[in-house]
């Protein structure tokens, strides 16, 4: 009885195991099995000579309707060569099914041929959530070997922002590890936020006409043009009252006020997202205190509750993002649509910027006096660290490291020095030594921009600046001017200063101008010269009134 049960169970288990991959799905082929090697194949007369494993050689006809495969892929008799091992089925003298194997690396794809394109929804260290144009999301991972390319140049991954458009390349078919990331260049940025009266649309041409157009500049709507035509992006999304609208419906909204997020497309403005105003506009410039993503609402510091929806234009770091990229504590310019207390956001423009674009980056700005400089290592004493837009003092020493790639600049002589000069000359001295007292030597002060503890760039000066006087300013380069009296200056529009007292970014209604000749300029983890600044660059800066100290191109 036991034996019967065992046999029965064994049969049950065996029948439950699916057939191996050698057979076509859902089909079994008639005939008796045959296994062996092809000795000869004749394509004209359609026969194949097979040496069975037993050593017996026999000639078989290939049936007219025989199913023929190599590695589970449809094949033809001409694809078979003598010497190939086969598995076949035959009826009488006819082969009805024949398969063989040839592929060395099963399931192999050439490195980099699996590609995913989408928008970065969330960055969390080595984890990227990508949203596809279809709205679907997937999570991928970076590794230390992941390469990033932006504007055709290799850049650190820390340059990546939420809202960036990326193309991800993978070396293996099922791997979630990204081997390469191509990041869309400046064309991903929102070039302008416009408001105007909808006039005409030429859908065939993809063109939109507006009247009484205003542009959001220096913290407020400013008159721009009385009549304006703009191209519509092929991915344009249009919303009214939180509902997506087909582009053919635009004509019904003629005369209404619209808000447009506009990108640059090869020198032309192109509308990326459009929200049509429904009721009445109110604007706020305040801190977002709390966000309820599920309830689709946020509360401003002034206790005003504002709803948002799929149509709300969220702009952060000059990129279109979704509500999940907005963090409580962000300072924002908010355009609402509604009446009374019922308000829904049409536009949320986040001002916040930081040295690091995401938590991938571990960049810091230090200021302090040199205590010691030895080969490849410096120590700062009583140093300051720029933390959340404010200089924070530490009554301590900080050890930092430099190398041959570190950019070391003497602000007194206005020239770059070598690492050897840095540690052999008198930038750090023991001020209590008789030698120092005799020669009236003092240790120099520095601004050090670091990647972790590694100094990317360091600027050296004899006297310490008053850090309390300094302000952190954001803005967009409007123009660069070579002033015959003060040297190279940069004017920033849409500028905001960080207010320590209010703990928020304060928009300025006038442009900010500063001298940049003695400033440390950083772009994509590298030091640049002032003539590499371009109008349209977004800047995070530390300045002492007119004197720029540190400018970072974001």
């Amino acid at each position, binding site marked *: 009885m036991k034996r019967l049960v065992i046999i029965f169970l064994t049969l049950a288990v065996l029948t439950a195991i699916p057939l191996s991959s050698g057979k076509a799905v859902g089909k079994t082929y008639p005939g008796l099995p045959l296994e062996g090697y092809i000795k000869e194949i004749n394509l004209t007369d359609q026969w194949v000579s097979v040496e069975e494993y037993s050593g017996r050689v026999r000639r078989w006809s290939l049936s007219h309707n025989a199913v023929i495969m190599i590695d589970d892929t449809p094949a033809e008799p001409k694809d078979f060569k003598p010497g190939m091992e086969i598995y076949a089925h035959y009826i009488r003298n006819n082969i009805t099914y024949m398969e063989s194997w040839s*592929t060395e690396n*099963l399931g192999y794809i050439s490195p980099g*041929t699996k590609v995913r394109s989408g928008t970065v929804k969330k960055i969390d260290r080595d984890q990227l959530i990508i949203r596809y144009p279809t709205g679907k999301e997937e999570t991928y991972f970076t590794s230390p070997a992941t390469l990033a390319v932006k504007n*055709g140049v290799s850049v650190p991954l820390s340059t990546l922002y939420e809202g960036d458009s990326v193309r991800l390349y993978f070396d293996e078919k099922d791997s979630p590890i990204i081997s390469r990331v191509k990041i869309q260049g400046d064309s991903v940025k929102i070039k302008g936020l416009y408001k105007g009266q909808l006039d005409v649309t030429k859908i065939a041409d993809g063109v939109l006409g507006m009247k009484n157009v205003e542009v959001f500049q220096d913290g407020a709507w400013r008159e721009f043009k009385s009549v304006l035509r703009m191209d519509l992006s092929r991915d344009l999304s249009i919303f009214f009252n939180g509902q997506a609208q087909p582009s053919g419906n635009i004509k019904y909204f003629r005369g209404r006020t619209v808000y447009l997020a506009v990108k640059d497309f090869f*020198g032309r403005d192109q509308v990326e997202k459009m929200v049509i105003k429904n009721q009445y506009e109110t604007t706020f410039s305040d801190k977002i205190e709390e966000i309820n993503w599920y309830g689709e609402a946020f509360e401003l510091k002034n206790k005003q509750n504002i709803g948002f929806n799929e149509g709300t234009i969220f702009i952060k770091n000059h990129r279109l993002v979704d509500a999940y990229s907005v963090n409580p504590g962000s300072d924002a310019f908010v355009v609402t649509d509604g009446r009374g207390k019922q308000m829904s956001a049409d536009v949320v423009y986040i001002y916040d910027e930081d040295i690091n674009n995401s938590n991938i980056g571990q960049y810091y700005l230090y200021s302090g006096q040199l205590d010691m400089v030895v080969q490849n290592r410096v120590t700062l004493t009583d140093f300051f660290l720029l933390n959340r837009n404010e200089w924070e003092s530490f009554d301590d020493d900080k050890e930092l490291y430099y190398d041959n790639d570190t950019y070391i600049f003497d602000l007194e002589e206005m020239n770059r020095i070598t690492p050897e000069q840095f540690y052999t000359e008198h930038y750090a001295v023991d001020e209590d030594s008789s030698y120092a007292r005799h020669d009236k030597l003092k240790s120099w002060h520095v601004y050090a921009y670091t990647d972790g503890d590694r100094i990317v760039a360091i600027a050296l000066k004899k006297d310490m600046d008053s850090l309390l006087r300094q302000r952190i300013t954001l803005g967009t380069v409007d123009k660069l001017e070579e002033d015959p009296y003060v040297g190279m200056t940069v004017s920033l529009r849409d500028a905001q200063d960080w207010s320590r007292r209010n703990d928020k970014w304060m928009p300025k209604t006038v442009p900010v101008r500063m001298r940049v000749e003695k400033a440390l300029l950083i772009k994509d983890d590298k030091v640049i010269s002032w003539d590499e600044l371009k109008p349209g660059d977004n800047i995070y800066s530390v300045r002492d009134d007119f004197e720029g100290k540190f400018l970072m191109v974001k």
Partner: protein
Amino acid sequence: MIMGKRMMALIIALAMFMSPLHALGAPSGFDGGVNNEYEYEEIVFITGKPMKFSGELDVKVSESKSGDTETVKYKYNLTNKDETIKTKLTRQITLVTEYTERDDKGQATAQTTLTRYSEKIDIGKDKYVLEDFQFSKSDVIDRRPAADFYSGNLEGRKYYKLNRDEGEVIISISGGNVGYENFWGSTETQIIDYYIISDRVVTYEDGENEKSCWEGTVRAQVSDSMTKKLIYGENEANFSSFDGGYIRTTNREMVSRYEYDLPRMKDNIPDERRRLKDRINLSAKMVPRVERLVVPKFRDVRGHWAEEYITKLYSLDVFDESPNFFTPEIAMTRAEFTKGVIRACDIRSSLEDDKKTSRSRSRRKELPEESPFKDVKVEDIDYRYIKQGLEKSIVAGVSKDFFKPNDPLTRAQAITILIRALGFGSKAPNPGYYTSFSDDDKIPFWARDSVYVAREIGIIEGDSYNRASPGKIMTRAEASAMLVRFLEFLEKDLQRDYRENIMLYN
């Protein structure tokens, strides 16, 4: 006369004989310039300072009687309108391309040579004359049923003399192009690197001479793109026999980006320490061409989830339907879908040939045509489409002898037909892999590559259970939706991949 003077971008293209390389959607020349119907513009870097020249471009395309040689003549007549000094650029180039068809592989190769050239650039008192121009270009064209895909490389060198003996400028050219052409659109993107070496003598007013040497690099990325799209236009009048209909618009646009690294020049002398690095964008759009399509009047698709897809395909004459009932929930047959794909992609040229052949055959009283399938008669209304599909390897029979034209179409069959039409089957991994669908084991062996590729390129997605449902019978509505998505791929996705994905990420 005024019109004659300002007749700037006259493009005489012999459309009937156009090859993929000079069809709509291929940039004019190899200088990174853009043009619309009226004006051509490009950036000239020969002086070390970027200067925008604009004006007339005349392109003439002709083909030899045998059809394997194409001649393109470019004639430029440009000026720089921004400069206060007098500027003029005249350039004439004749390029001859010889095609070698490889019908056995469904491919062709093209070899382009320069047969004639002349160029003169006047900038103020300086006159640059092109003394020598070496140029070589080669392309490979992969002819697939639904589209031709091509890619090429070019190398060249221009040697200019400045004011006869005051100096010389040598521009080395190296680059490549990539493009596609199908009924719904064509795009060609070129990326060309220029390496400029200038060596001249500058004479000051006091008679002193100084040697001025500089080197610079320029990268030009230019893309010419043509797409056709369908736009629904409502009928403004209420008392009309139809509510609205589709308009097919043909849009053409050129975009270009120059990225340069040049010395900062002052009075023709370069600043040794400072460089000029920047980008210049150009774009030009042509006026769209519009075509009204026939108006659908189905009684049974209003409000159906696939109404838009069905009416679009009807307007395109993809399906021969009775004007009243489409029956969207009935199964699509294999023959109908085959016909739909062939019509939607406009794979009609050889059908026309087929007609002519049958006429001449009847004149010659040759043997009557024999159907490759026992269940498809030569007289059948869909015979020509099935034969065409078989010849182009878009479809295959269920066995060697039978096509089963009236059998319902499964998703696996539909996907396979579309991917074969694109010729993308070879993009699948080596055999012996699993797709990421939860019902991978249900995918027939002959459809595995197509299902994998279709998901990779975004033509299909898994359902809420991540199933591909390969064996599911497709209704006429579902098949219409898939066909419209396929057309979108040909029109929009390919354009994005060949233009935005190259130019905005490089």
